[in-house]
């Protein structure tokens, strides 16, 4: 029995090690190349390790402006999404109404729609109402595309907050809005953190939406500006591209680590997949 389970473990370890190498090589490339003065497309140990690539890309033009744009876009859209979703989840979670079921069904349906497909009409629409190439328009669309999932998740988290505490607050004369702000939201801190991080990460990495809706270079977020490494700069400096990729990816990785440390791995999936 024990010998068999040891053999089982060895087999599993070997299989996972193969997967680890296959998944790890591209990641190894980006880390090693960012530190390599003469990086190319292969994974190799840097002959001359250097932070020169980071120095080279840490300029307003290449890094700071795009990251600031990303921050404005994703921060703005996340704030809008979380605020709207928290408000919307309250009546859906607390009151019984004939509207609830159709509303939730529609939300769940919209959660699954391929947003890529609506980008062409969104572009055409935005041209007509002068929202094209505006941060505001992009933020609104980002928020609209995240809202169905955010409301769904938020409602599930809110269902977990016991109603008795609110009833006590009502007896003490608190209104609906007060009890939402003072009682319910503080109690669902982890839920709000999950929704916030999830929305932010989804938008931070999104390429197609800003690629379509924003035109002027000075408004481009990092997800689009990264393309410049290939375009007008002539030959691609792979070390710098790798360094920029790492800088650009770090915020979402940190957020993910933070949230999954505190609230367990695979954080948003309980709500997302099980409905």
């Amino acid at each position, binding site marked *: 029995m024990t010998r068999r389970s040891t053999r089982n473990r060895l087999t599993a370890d070997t299989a*996972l090690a193969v997967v680890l190498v296959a998944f790890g090589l591209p990641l190894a490339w980006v880390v090693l190349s960012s530190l390599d003065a003469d990086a190319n497309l292969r994974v190799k140990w840097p002959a001359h390790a250097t932070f020169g690539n980071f120095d080279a890309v840490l300029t307003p033009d290449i890094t700071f402006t795009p990251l600031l744009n990303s921050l404005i876009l994703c921060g703005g859209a996340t704030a809008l999404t979380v605020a709207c979703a928290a408000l919307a989840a309250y009546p*859906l979670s607390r009151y019984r109404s004939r509207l609830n079921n159709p509303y939730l069904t529609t939300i769940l349906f919209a959660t699954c729609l391929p947003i890529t*497909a609506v980008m062409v009409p969104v572009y055409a629409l935005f041209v007509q109402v002068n929202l094209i190439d505006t941060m505001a328009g992009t933020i*609104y669309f980002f928020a609209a595309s995240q809202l169905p999932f955010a409301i769904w998740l938020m409602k599930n988290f809110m269902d977990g907050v016991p109603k008795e505490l609110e009833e006590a607050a009502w007896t003490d004369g608190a209104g609906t809005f007060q009890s939402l702000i003072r009682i319910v939201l503080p109690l669902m801190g982890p839920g709000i953190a999950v929704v916030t991080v999830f929305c932010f*990460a989804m938008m931070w990495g*999104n390429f197609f939406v800003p690629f379509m809706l924003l035109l002027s270079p000075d408004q481009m977020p990092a997800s689009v500006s990264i*393309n410049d490494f290939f375009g007008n700069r002539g030959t691609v400096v792979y070390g710098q591209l790798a360094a920029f990729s790492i800088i650009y990816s770090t915020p979402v990785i940190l957020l993910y680590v933070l949230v999954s440390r505190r609230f367990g791995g695979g954080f948003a*999936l309980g709500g997302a997949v099980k409905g």
Partner: protein
Amino acid sequence: MLRALPLAPATIVMALFLAGPIAYCVYIAFTDLQLTGQASSSFVGFDNFRTAFHDAAFLNAVKLTLVFTFLSSIVGQNTLGLALAALMKRASKPVRTVTGAVVVTAWVLPEVVAGFLLYAFFRREGTLNAILDWLGLPSQNWLFTLPILAVSFANVWRGTAFSMLVYSAALDEIPAEITEAAEVDGANAWQRLWHVTLPMIRRSIGTNLMLNTLQTLSVFGLIWVMTRGGPSNHSQTLPLFMYEQAFQKSMIGYGTAVALLLLVVGSLFSVVYMRLLRSEP
């Protein structure tokens, strides 16, 4: 009525910026709207759809979308995700932790970064060919000879973590007694997988397949970064075809018709997904 008031902000944002474009999509798919040149557009009925079904490039995009979805989502992400989840349960802790972290990192990375990493991996001068050289195997220009395979692999690399997490959660919920009982009755590993494990997690399989497929249907950035849909349309899935028609060829009406078809397919998957959730106890 007042009680429904908190729903207003979210509903307004979604109505204006999500439902609006979808409704507009349905409308312009039936017009010959163009980006430049033409001042006005006119109603053309089902012309765009008829054109699509006679357009070799469109049919090619449909075929490639099917290949891409089948290879990367159904075979790749789903099966590999399940295998990883099952292996993790038996593996030793350090191997499990490191592998899990690496697979999840690939998932958390921004789409474009993932695209670049896999572009570097598959390029002629890239890591894959370096390994093949080292093993004495013939190398080739993967992004040129087998672009759809390369982008499918990239999507597996990027998306498997999701399935892995879903299946890890599902496997944890299977009571140990049931598997043990099957083992005592003399069932081997395959029999246990086929007759015990898979039936018990079938709902997770259903929902995971739906979500993977929907996700894969709308992949744009990853393919755009790696191949731009090329060489000569050999990795042009529907979203890239839609983009090319609408913006590079300025035929918004036609591009939108393609988008509408994509939306319809997505909606069908959506409905099936909701059915699966409904049937949960």
